[in-house]
């Protein structure tokens, strides 16, 4: 199965009586999530708020989010996929042996209880974080969780949603899709979009040293990427647009200071559920907006002789 069974956050607020966080620590990483959308909000069909909801946290370590949970399930590292697969079997009434479950760090009883709670929920939601999607198994883990959510719809209403963060990463993904058909990892060098994560993703290009220049906007790869990738950014002409000094701006050939979007520049931000919100700047900035700078660069580049695929 591919795809995703999901909803906007207001559906969770109004309906969810079972909320599962998997491989994430919202208490610290998305501090408003509990209070604005999920746990403590009183919803149309969960009028008593927190009292009407059950929260289950699944993670490899006990984070501050565990305090908010009714049930905390500590999985052995790298065993998420096995747990998810077991749950998919259990909801369908298939037999699972206690020994196979043991290696996950959980007991069969715990998982049976979990499966039953999911099937009995009126409206359940699985939020999953980078602890699931960026650890061993990566997209296989996400796919298993998304399949679990889809298959639960044979019994009740169930949805899943990734816990995305890092500024407007969702907005970037959304706009890339309508302009190129793909969310990220797009190569336009042949004059049309090609998609191959693992080949054309930023980190892979940098690690192989394929690109001979970089324009970086709204991101600080110098803080998060592996050292050889950062070394390549330092080697090539790297241009950074950022309101502040960052790890990347320090190693860049050019740093253009821009107005901070949302504070002194207008724009649109897409929430993790892909709902667009307009940004109204509260302050004025002496610096140009990112959009201004990109438009000016584009105009200057457009004066150069054009290159089109098939021409020399």
């Amino acid at each position: 199965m591919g795809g995703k069974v999901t909803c906007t956050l207001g559906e969770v607020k109004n309906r969810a009586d079972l909320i599962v966080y998997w491989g994430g620590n919202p208490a610290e990483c998305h501090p408003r999530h509990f209070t604005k959308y999920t746990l403590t909000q009183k919803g149309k069909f969960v009028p008593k708020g927190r009292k009407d909801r059950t929260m289950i946290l699944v993670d490899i370590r006990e984070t501050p989010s565990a305090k908010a949970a009714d049930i905390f399930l500590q999985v052995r590292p790298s065993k998420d996929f096995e747990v998810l697969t077991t749950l998919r079997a259990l909801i369908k009434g298939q037999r699972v042996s206690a020994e196979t479950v043991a290696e996950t760090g959980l007991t069969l009883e715990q998982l049976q209880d979990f499966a039953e709670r999911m099937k009995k929920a009126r409206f359940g939601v699985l939020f999953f974080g980078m602890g699931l999607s960026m650890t061993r198994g990566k997209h296989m883990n996400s796919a298993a969780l998304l399949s679990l959510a889809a298959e639960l719809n044979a019994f009740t209403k169930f949805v899943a949603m990734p816990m995305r963060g890092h500024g407007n990463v969702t907005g970037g993904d959304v706009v890339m899709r309508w302009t190129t058909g793909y969310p990220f990892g797009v190569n336009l060098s042949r004059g049309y979009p090609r998609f191959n994560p693992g080949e054309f993703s930023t980190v892979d290009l940098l690690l192989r040293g394929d690109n001979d220049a970089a324009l970086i906007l709204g991101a600080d790869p110098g803080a998060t990427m592996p050292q050889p990738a950062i070394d390549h950014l330092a080697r090539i002409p790297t241009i950074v647009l950022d309101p502040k000094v960052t790890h990347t701006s320090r190693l860049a050939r050019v740093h253009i200071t821009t107005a901070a979007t949302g504070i002194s520049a207008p724009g649109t931000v897409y929430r993790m559920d892909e709902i667009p919100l307009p940004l109204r700047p509260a302050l004025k900035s002496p610096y140009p907006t990112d959009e201004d700078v990109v438009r000016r660069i584009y105009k200057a580049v457009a004066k150069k002789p054009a290159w089109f695929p098939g021409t020399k």
Partner: protein
Amino acid sequence: MLRITGGKVYDPANNINGQIKDICISDGRIVSEVEGGRTIDATGMIVFPGGVDVHTHVAGAALNFARAMIPEDHRRNAPYVRGERHRGGIGGATPTTYVTGYLYAGMGWTTVNEAAVPILSARHTHEELRDTPIVDKSCCVLLANNEILLDLLEAGETERARHVAAWQIWAAKAYGVKAVNPGGVAAWKWGKDAKGLYEPVPGYNKVTPAKIIAALASIVDDLGLPHPLHLHCNNLGAPGNYNTTLETMKVLEGKRAHLAHLQYHAYGGDDWFTMRSKSAEVADYFNAHPNLTTDAGAVLFGNTVTITADGPWQHLLYKLTGRKWGNLDVENETGCGIVPYVYKEKNLVNAVQWAVGLELLLLINDPWRVFLTTDHPNGAAFWRYPEIIQLLMDVNFRREQLKKLAPKALKRILLPELDRQYTLSEIAVITSAGPARALGLAHKGHLGIGADADVAIFNDSKDIARMFAYPRYVIKGGEVVIEEGEIRKAVEGRGYVVRPVYDEKIEDYIRPLFQQYYTMSFDNYPVELERLENPDIRSC
């Protein structure tokens, strides 16, 4: 200034049927005479008003969700390589926005109506429409599962419901109102559906699908919107659903309505094994009721992706196909489901669907009330319209195609008995003049003095599919945008919007409900008019 000379003109709205006639253009409009300027010699060609698509899905959260789900389709189709006057992109079942504009214009279509927009993500839809060049655009806002409205209908407050709906239409910067599976999508929020027109919607006591349909059709008529209620009936796709469709048409008596993609609503039988065409029953009733218009929602064999606000139907389709499933419920308003799909000639259900789309186009006798669509991308991608035109115009070609079906399928359909062939003039009606009139766009769909200068010029050829797939010239707003198979100018389109009248105080009613049930600031809910490129507010 531009003169088109020597072409056979098909302008059914002005009773011009293949006469050789000059068409003169100045300042983006059709005029009676021009002096100087360019002349296009259209000798041996036919001249049509630009195509108008009354029902398509080309922009917004649901379509963009689908794009992410089908990278394999993007790879399968020829890419769109960037050139001096156009951007690169992807075609296929869910073309990227720029390519959507190029492909529609490249086929002679110059106006499109995006048929399903949630208010909550309307800002996103308008951002995409802004990035869809050349064509003019309008959109319909989804209201038939809006819980603020349903709660008002439950309470019997129809007057207030009208003000709320009017406010919502303007908040979404919409042009019309769409109803999808009335009550069924709201029920789907609990994993249920609304199948009986007169049964209460789950979660309500008095609200039934019939009540929602009647209320919304009246609201749209009372507000004087140029386009009637745009209705996707209950029980889409289900065997035996023609009864629901007939019942729905009865509910609509005395009111205007446009029934979307009628093909998906004209099946008999009790299950997938006994499913058969009921196009004759549906067409008969429809023919006798001039308050209604419809579009075909025709199916062509091949790969596509289905996208609809009808969440419960998509869950069923996922269970049937076992393939990918996307679902996106939108708080308090609507939902959407996405399932990639392949229509196969040898599959009985698919064969019936293919035949029913064509049957309805052939059995509905007034071409001014039935329009060419595939419910893009549900039945097939819009860029395959020329194939349908060929099927309609050439009975021998149709018979050839029928041979590809399983013999068993032929007993379930009427198509083998139908020998009607569309004329060029009728094609001009179902692709342009009719849908323009149904949308209430008086300056579209014809070539009379004062009309928008949207013109498509085709070779007059025996190879129908080819001639309609590759127009010689396409003119949009007086500018030559396509010539000799190339994009000459990717002009910007307009966005049509209506501003119905409502009591400004209605906001005081909506605001507290919004703050209670939604998750964004009320001030951020309505789409700013500035989000639209070239907004054109139509009076109502």
